[in-house]
């Protein structure tokens, strides 16, 4: 079996486990079998094993981290999001309902990546920088935090709309959910800030300028400003829980466009590495 075939096999094995995890979460939460939640978490965690192996094989195969192709970028983003989800659920078991949103989002991201061109590409000299590693790492952490904020916002809206069910009842009240949503946004904001900061240092090292209004740089700034508007508006104008949830969802959509869509559309220094 070729290394690429091994990678693909491990990736799809992980997808199968994750789908199993979603089904188990749904069964435990919607059909009120809380004792099955631990199994759902373990099923998802087990899925991380082939996923990690697949990413490690990819690393070994191409000789660099998941920076270049949609295939590897999206897969690693999904990995980070799922790890963050499991860590959060490990700390807060009562929040298992988040998995019903975050896990499918991560699977979607991974599945989308798996259907793109998996050709291995060598790392150009400008990308051979430690700052790039931090830039990418914090970007993935930001995506993970934003995925969790999205999940939290959707669950919050469900509660606000009067939806009931055992899985929703297990979650804390609206005020805690809202605070948690904003805290996820806050962590994502911190990671996004760091992503931009590290990227600036790297850009200065590579091109002699820390900011060049490159389209992806600009979109990254716009996303950061959108989250800043959300955080300021909540503080200044006392946004209610529903407004906060919708604003979080809108900001998430913008962040997805910036990270996953715009680099593949706009000609930019970033897109040179993604558009293939």
């Amino acid at each position, binding site marked *: 079996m070729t290394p690429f075939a091994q990678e693909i096999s491990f990736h799809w094995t992980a997808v199968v486990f994750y789908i199993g995890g979603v089904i188990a979460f749904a069964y435990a939460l919607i059909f009120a079998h809380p004792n099955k939640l631990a199994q759902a978490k373990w099923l998802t965690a087990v899925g991380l094993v082939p996923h990690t192996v697949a990413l490690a094989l990819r690393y070994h195969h191409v000789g660099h981290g998941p920076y270049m192709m949609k295939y590897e970028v999206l897969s690693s983003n999904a990995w980070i999001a799922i790890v963050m989800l499991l860590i959060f659920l490990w700390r807060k078991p009562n929040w298992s309902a988040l998995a019903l949103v975050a896990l499918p989002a991560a699977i979607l991201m991974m599945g989308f990546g798996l259907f793109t061109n998996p050709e291995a590409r060598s790392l150009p000299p400008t990308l051979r920088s430690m700052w790039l590693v931090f830039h990418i790492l914090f970007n993935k952490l930001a995506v993970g935090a934003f995925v969790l904020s999205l999940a939290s916002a959707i669950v919050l809206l469900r509660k606000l709309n009067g939806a009931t069910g055992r899985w929703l009842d297990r979650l804390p009240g609206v005020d805690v959910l809202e605070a948690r949503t904003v805290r996820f946004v806050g962590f994502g904001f911190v990671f996004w800030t760091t992503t931009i900061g590290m990227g600036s240092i790297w850009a200065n090292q590579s091109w002699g300028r820390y900011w060049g209004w490159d389209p992806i740089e600009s979109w990254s*700034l716009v996303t950061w400003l959108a989250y800043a508007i959300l955080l*300021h508006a909540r503080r200044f104008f006392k946004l209610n829980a529903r407004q906060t949830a919708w604003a979080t969802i809108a900001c998430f959509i913008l962040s997805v466009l910036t990270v996953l869509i715009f680099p593949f559309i706009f000609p930019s220094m970033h897109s040179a590495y993604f558009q293939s």
Partner: protein
Amino acid sequence: MNPFAPIKRFLRKPAVILGEIAAVAVAGALGALLPDRHIFQSVWFAAVTMLTAASLAVVVNEQFRRAWWQWRQPPSPAQFQSAPFKTEFERLATSANPRQKIWSERRLGLAGSLVFHTGLLLLIFAGAWRALFVSEGTVDLLEGETLAPAAAWSAQWPGVFGKPLRLQQPLTLEAVSGSRYADGHLRDLRVKSSAGEIAVNRQLDFGGSRLYLGQNFGPSALLEWNSTRRQAVLLTDDGRQNYSGESTSPNGLRVYLSCNAERPSGFSVRAMRGNALLAAGTLDVGRILALPAGESLALRGAPMWARLHGCADSTLWLAYAGMILTMTGAAMMFCLIKLDFCVVITPLGEKERVFIALKPQRFAPLFQERFEKIVREQTSNRSGVSAERRQHIGTGTAALCRDAATLLLLAGLAFTSGCDRVSQTQAKQLVERYNQVVSEAYRRGDVRLIDPVVGPNEGKKLTGLIGVRLDLGITLDSQLLALDVIGVEQAKDSLLVQTKERWSYRDLKIGTGAQVGEASQDAYEMTYYFTNVSKAWLVDEIKFAAPPQVGRTNTPWVADRATLHGTTTTEAKP
């Protein structure tokens, strides 16, 4: 009256600040969407940036004053009247003297917003300085060529008030070298100059400027047309070591040059006029190629060339400082939430009244558990405040580390989450112990017995239930017939245990021990919520996971359900 006061008031208005952020965001989006980026050089963008900087300056000034005042001003008991978490209860006296302890954790969180906005202000200042006063330029240098200090840059982008970029000393490019991957893609590029080495991602500080090397490089062809006109043609790479370039003769003859080596001994040449191919061949260094119409082309050399980028930005350190402050401030804002605690103990004869309050700086609803933990500790604490204070200093640091670890050290934790867990057997023992202690408390009518196994929530509920029975002159004699643990979930400090239980109950008259009413055999599906306090698992709450199956048909006593502290089926479960 301060004449600037109205301006300051305007600049710190929330609507103005939000408008500024939104305007910058719109400019960014338009600049990214439109093909040219003149928007970032427009007057209105400059005005918005200036307005934003002015607002930031006002906000930073105010935040500094506020943070300084709050830092120096410890919280007073009066401030805790508005605390989101506060409670008051009585307990047996531990001392005859009144005590009061007020303390704060994660005080650095106070400076988060200040540090963040200061960083932004520095960044805007550094960016504006660069746009106004700093010049940038690029130059393509051949091996052996010297870049003269003045006017040698082939392209310059001076700031509005910037002087042309110039080095203080001449710079000679000595050699260009690169390495490639097996598939032919460029791996590394570096140049040796008279001032030192410059590589991709490794700048050179030289002559008051910083010199950077991009990825543009290749062989060049030093051509001589008709023994009179000389020209240097820079061949560029297609990404896989295929280089090409072109030159035009004084008479309009176009010559296309190509090679597939970085240091070629010659080039493939195709001479064309319009679309007509007039000649094709190889031109080696030092040779002359005769072309139609009496023209000739000589190749005098094939040195490598590389493109250097120069910049003399004296505020780069300021921009970096701004970035560091912005990142640090953002992290402080969301990871360090200042918490103010207050514990006031007032002696009341044999008892004492304990007032506990917690006031988080932000995200108050998320600190409910923390507050409950303090209350539990105070409830079981017989030695006063000092021990608790010690514990909180520890937990403050621990919580900070925990937050950082949770956010950054992701991979390992996911796999180690199964370690150090309460097993099903241990969970069963915990539930058995709880039931044993609580049954004994019911039997004796002594609520103090439950202290070692329950937290405040459940303790309050049980105190009410046992008290109601005592008021009615009965005690409960219960026996656990069967217990199966069907699920265990554990977080760091909380444990959820799901059980199926069968119980036998009978109520006994205090004094005579005579049975009151009928006995009952019940079956339950229960969920126990344990919390870890000082390494002990205490029951914080119990809920029915399914409607209870109660054996007896009549309750032998009647009580107002409103007094039963929310217990749904008090007659069924002790």
